[in-house]
């Protein structure tokens, strides 16, 4: 047993942190620090920095053009990244459809799609959820009917993050309605410019527009956009969800945010007690994450125990956003920014505080999406505890 990382690993950590910090545009850093919304251009600009270092698709094996990090490096990369006020990259290409493509697609599809993801050339969105099928994918209704060289897709997707900015959508569709629900599902890639696609924005409680409904009406998708075998999409989709779970604790960002809170209080403040309570929970989570990483390094499989990272990571992130609200008090009750003093100066409080409430509201999603925490508990009950 030893806690320290190797000097090489520590050097790697510092290299990532310093490189990212040096190339993080000041305006983007400021927006991220204040919890302000980023434009599509902001995100692309930052992802170009990542892509320039081949760090956009940070989790990809070298075989498919990724950096080929081992588990430790992957972890340290996330830690270094998360310690900065740098926006997280859009996940749909790099951690969702990317791995499905390199694991299950044919060579032609790999050549066509993978480089564009890695190089920040194509914005992907997700077509999984449907009204009435949130965590429960087996009840999908969107249909794809073969018509010559095309599938004709009809149906509705929802909770589609940034559909309005996306170039492509990966989609679970029913190609066979005669068999068991799971068996007739296929995995299709759809160009968002195809006629028949309508996007309706969904405004969320934090006042933002991130998610959308996507209506598909006689959308003709070339057959060569089918990934793997027809009817096998359920398996690809499930593999994708499991791939995600390990890196979902968000501990680095929670640490960054908590550090910021501690700066603002004296050691004997009652808020310091609350910060310490959360920090101790966070440290336990961080070391649980490291322990599972250690298991992987030793050739083991953390398996569904990784669900614990999602459960606790999201609970802690929410609690931090709540504590921040309480520390700001009345200053966080307004959502308009930039109040000027009589002399024209900008007071310190409100600008810092303006997004605290929207952030608190926005983070309620953490325990709902990516497999709700209730679903994670059911997974653990079955697979880890054998219940």
């Amino acid at each position, binding site marked *: 047993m030893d806690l320290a990382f190797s000097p090489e690993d520590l050097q790697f950590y510092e290299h990532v942190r310093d490189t990212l910090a040096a190339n993080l545009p000041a305006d983007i850093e400021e927006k991220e620090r204040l919890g302000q919304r980023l434009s599509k251009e902001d995100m692309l600009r930052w992802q170009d920095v990542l892509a320039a270092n081949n760090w956009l698709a940070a989790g990809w094996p070298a075989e498919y053009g990724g950096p080929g990090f081992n588990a430790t490096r992957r972890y340290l990369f996330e830690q270094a990244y998360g310690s900065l006020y740098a926006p997280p990259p859009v996940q749909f290409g790099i951690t969702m459809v990317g791995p499905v493509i390199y694991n299950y697609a044919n060579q032609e599809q790999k050549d066509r799609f993978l480089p564009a993801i890695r190089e920040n050339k194509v914005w992907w969105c997700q077509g999984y*959820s449907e009204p*009435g099928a*949130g*965590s*429960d994918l*087996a*009840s999908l209704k969107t249909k794809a009917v073969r018509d010559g060289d095309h599938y004709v897709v009809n149906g509705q997707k*929802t*909770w589609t993050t940034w559909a309005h900015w996306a170039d492509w959508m990966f989609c679970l569709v029913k190609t066979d309605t005669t068999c068991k629900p799971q068996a007739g599902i296929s995995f299709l890639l759809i160009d968002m410019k195809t006629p028949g696609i309508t996007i309706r924005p*969904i*405004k*969320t*409680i934090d*006042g933002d527009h991130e*998610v959308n409904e996507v209506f598909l009406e006689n959308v003709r998708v070339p057959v060569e956009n089918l990934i793997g075998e027809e009817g096998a999409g359920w398996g690809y989709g499930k593999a994708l969800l499991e791939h995600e779970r390990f890196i979902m604790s968000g501990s680095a960002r929670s640490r960054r945010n908590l550090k910021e809170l501690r700066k603002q209080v004296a050691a004997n403040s*009652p*808020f310091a007690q609350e910060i310490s309570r959360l920090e101790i929970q966070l440290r336990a989570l961080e070391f649980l994450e490291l322990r599972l990483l250690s298991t992987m390094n030793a050739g083991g499989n953390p398996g569904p125990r990784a669900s614990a990272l999602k459960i606790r990571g999201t609970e802690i992130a929410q609690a931090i956003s709540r504590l921040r*609200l*309480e520390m*700001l*008090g*009345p*200053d*966080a*009750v*307004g*959502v*308009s920014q930039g*109040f*000027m*003093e*009589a002399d024209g100066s900008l*007071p*310190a*409080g*409100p600008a810092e505080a303006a997004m605290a*409430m*929207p952030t*608190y*509201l926005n983070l*309620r*999603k953490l*325990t*709902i*999406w990516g497999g*709700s925490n*209730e679903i994670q508990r059911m997974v653990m009950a079955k697979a880890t505890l054998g219940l």
Partner: protein
Amino acid sequence: MNFEYDETEQMLADSVHRFMDDTAGMEKARADAALDKGYSADSWNTCAEMGWLAAPFAEENGGFGLGAVGSMIVEEALGKGLSPLPYLTSVVFSGKILEQLGEAVEDLLEGVISGEKVLSIALHETGKGYGYETPSTTATLQNGEWVVNGAKSNVVSAGAADGFIVSATVDGDGFGLFYVEAGEVAANIREINLVDNRRAGHISFVAAKAARLDEGNGLEIFDNALDEVLIAAASENLGAMQAAFDQTLEYAKIRKQFGKELGKFQVLQHRLVDMSIKVEEARSIIMAAAMALKEGHEDAKSLSRAAWVQSLWSGRHVGEEAIQIHGGIGMTDELEIGDFVKRINANELLFGIPMHHIERYNTLMA
């Protein structure tokens, strides 16, 4: 000991709930927030005509004598209806300060009760949290007239108010309460939106002419008014959380997941029960606090704080669970759930987090 409404109380509750059911709710609240005043003047007139603004005041002051029970009843309905009407700040907070001041402010109070005047409270200062007792804003005598200098933030309905009750530090004399006509600061109000569709303003007081309201007992007057404000705001939270709970329960009975209704999952059953208990606990202590204050019980002050804190505990729990149980749809602006959560959170930040009030409760109980 009787927790049932009497005839007058029941009539008040029925009429204000009916009005809210007919004219309020999410769509209306959002539309009203975009109006000039940030609320519907028509609705406010109705409130005045129906006597709801008079409900909490003593009969000798032109009120209906229902005290904190009256404001509690009205506020529960406003919370359920997500109303942006300035009842809490003009009627309860300002009105209950004025009611303690006697003849000198008779006209002002009359204006508040009749609805002809809308007042607000200029209390918060940026970066000061809940340090009410020591405002940075100052009041000084200049040629025998008081002038107020300083910046106040998050003054609810600032743009619609006819005047402000302002807390300020009086040179050498501690905390004081002042009245400033809106005209004195009209050019120095920057309106903002609160998170919950109410409007507020940041106000710069630059040598604003003011009338002193208290006689050195400003903090006591302020604190007494706060007793009723906290109960009324707690009741607004109650209206919001009750509605959020009712809608969640309804949703759980209809929405299916994995082939059965959410409400058939044992985990959600237990959690819905816990939500319902939280609502009942809040309701019980809020009713008790209102009665205690109205009847002048010795523990009214501590009960007011306890009711407020419980309303926040319950409201937070119920609100967060309401979103979680709804799932994705609970995160959207298409349901009222988010608006209820925002109302409760806005009230928490405006009137004080649990930690702040528990400290005060401690000293009251010591």
